[in-house]
């Protein structure tokens, strides 16, 4: 299996490390080596048909800020110059246009390559097109890590709960907002809690995507399209962020034994991200950076999952699970 990694930031490096850590496991399971034949960051790339050492790639990136010595301006040209079987697309999310990630995924699927991505932009904007391309060209297209990071939800619903009639999914889909709201539970005002989240590295310098609910809205769209079979896009989501939540509102909620959490909700009729009142002790009332989702089904009743929604190795673990599914299908 020859892998091309597009995007060599936190998640790309994490996946390279996970591949190195699971080298023996993969060799024993499939009787063959998994090779990274190309790795691209935003400006440079490294390629070798015999395979690149994953840990060396990470070390080079850390030491020089670049993954390779060769530069490029068009990622598609690099992809077309390399023989590969599977694209792992982990370039930065562009929620306005889908960005380079959308171009890369389109190109790979058009050429009959399997694709794994955690890039929310292309999925939130062009889901139907990409699924159609994958079907047309008989490619496998998986994206477990795009919602909830290491928390299994898409494959859980599409595989383990496939016989269920899923009525709704409600969940904490953004760890940054949950961290800020958890801090506000203890009396901190919003601005202070946000600053602390930024200092801890949980929130970006520009936190708009998180605190306005846009990141969670992308995930709601992905769940709606992939699990409920809807054909919706980012602009269809009813979004309210957490910027207007005051310390008084949190205190008043607390006096009624409740907390405020940013909840994404998807069903056949709903598509919403908004702050909600959650009873203390409810599975969706958890604190910190964790993600959680409650899937309401007709036979099994409510099924709740929780896990780390972001992080280098955590997100890479979701890519690994998709990778193993694809390898199992190929065997």
């Amino acid at each position: 299996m020859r892998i091309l990694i597009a995007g060599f930031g936190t998640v790309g490096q994490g996946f390279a490390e996970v591949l190195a850590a699971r080298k023996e496991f993969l060799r024993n399971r499939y009787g063959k080596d998994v090779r990274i034949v190309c790795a691209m960051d935003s400006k440079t790339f490294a390629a070798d048909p015999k395979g690149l050492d994953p840990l060396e790639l990470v070390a080079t990136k850390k030491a020089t800020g670049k993954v390779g010595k060769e530069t490029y301006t068009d990622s598609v040209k690099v992809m077309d110059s390399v023989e590969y079987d599977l694209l792992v697309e982990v370039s930065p999310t562009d929620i306005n246009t889908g960005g380079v990630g959308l171009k890369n995924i389109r190109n790979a699927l058009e050429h009959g390559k399997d694709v794994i991505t955690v890039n929310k932009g292309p999925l939130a904007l062009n889901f139907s097109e990409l699924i159609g391309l994958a079907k047309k060209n008989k490619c496998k297209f998986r994206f477990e890590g795009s919602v909830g990071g290491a928390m299994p939800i898409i494959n859980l619903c599409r595989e383990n709960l496939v016989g269920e009639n899923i009525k709704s999914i409600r969940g904490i889909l953004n760890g940054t907002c949950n961290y800020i709201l958890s801090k506000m539970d203890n009396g901190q005002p919003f601005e202070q809690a946000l600053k602390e989240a930024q200092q801890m590295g949980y929130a970006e310098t520009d936190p708009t995507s998180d605190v306005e609910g846009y990141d969670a809205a992308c995930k709601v769209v992905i769940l709606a399209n992939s699990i409920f079979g809807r054909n919706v896009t980012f602009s269809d989501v009813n979004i309210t962020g957490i910027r207007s939540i005051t310390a008084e509102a949190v205190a008043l909620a607390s006096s009624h034994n409740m907390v405020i959490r940013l909840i994404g909700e998807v069903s056949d009729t709903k598509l919403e991200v908004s702050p909600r009142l959650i009873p203390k002790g409810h599975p969706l009332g958890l604190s910190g950076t964790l993600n959680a989702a409650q899937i309401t089904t007709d036979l099994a009743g409510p099924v709740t999952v929780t896990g780390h929604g972001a992080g280098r190795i955590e997100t890479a673990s979701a890519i690994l699970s998709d990778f193993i599914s694809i390898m199992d299908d190929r065997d």
Partner: protein
Amino acid sequence: MLVNAELYVKDLPGQLVGSLEPISMVNGNIVGVVHNRDIIVNQRICVNVTFEVGSNDDLEKLKKAWKSRDILIASIGSVYKTCTMEYLLVGSFSASYVESLIDEASNVVSFESVDVNYSTANATNTMTAMITAEVLSQEDLEKLDKFLVSACREGGIVYIRGL
């Protein structure tokens, strides 16, 4: 339908079971039973039972069965299930605004009860109101949600509802 009945049974062994058996005979589902041994009237003990039955016909059959077993029915009536939801409103408004909002909402749904708590931030002049509303059905909750979403959007008020 959910029904609550207060019965008086003779203070003899087997009378409690004897009062509950007929409920099963009409395919009823017992939700709760309280055997009040301290309430004794004319050597009879009070049994309060809440149960679900399919129809009025079943309920009539049940009443006949109780009478045939010499079980006295002191009171019987329907019990309504209610739905409660909390709403948090944050913005620049007054308590009288919230009261008029609830008045308007009562034209849309029938409230069983409404409770409002307020909190004010002096520095920002922002008011927070926690409304706890009890209505008769899930449909009423949906109607109330739509009404409040629309009103809060018009008033520039942040609207947070329960799960």
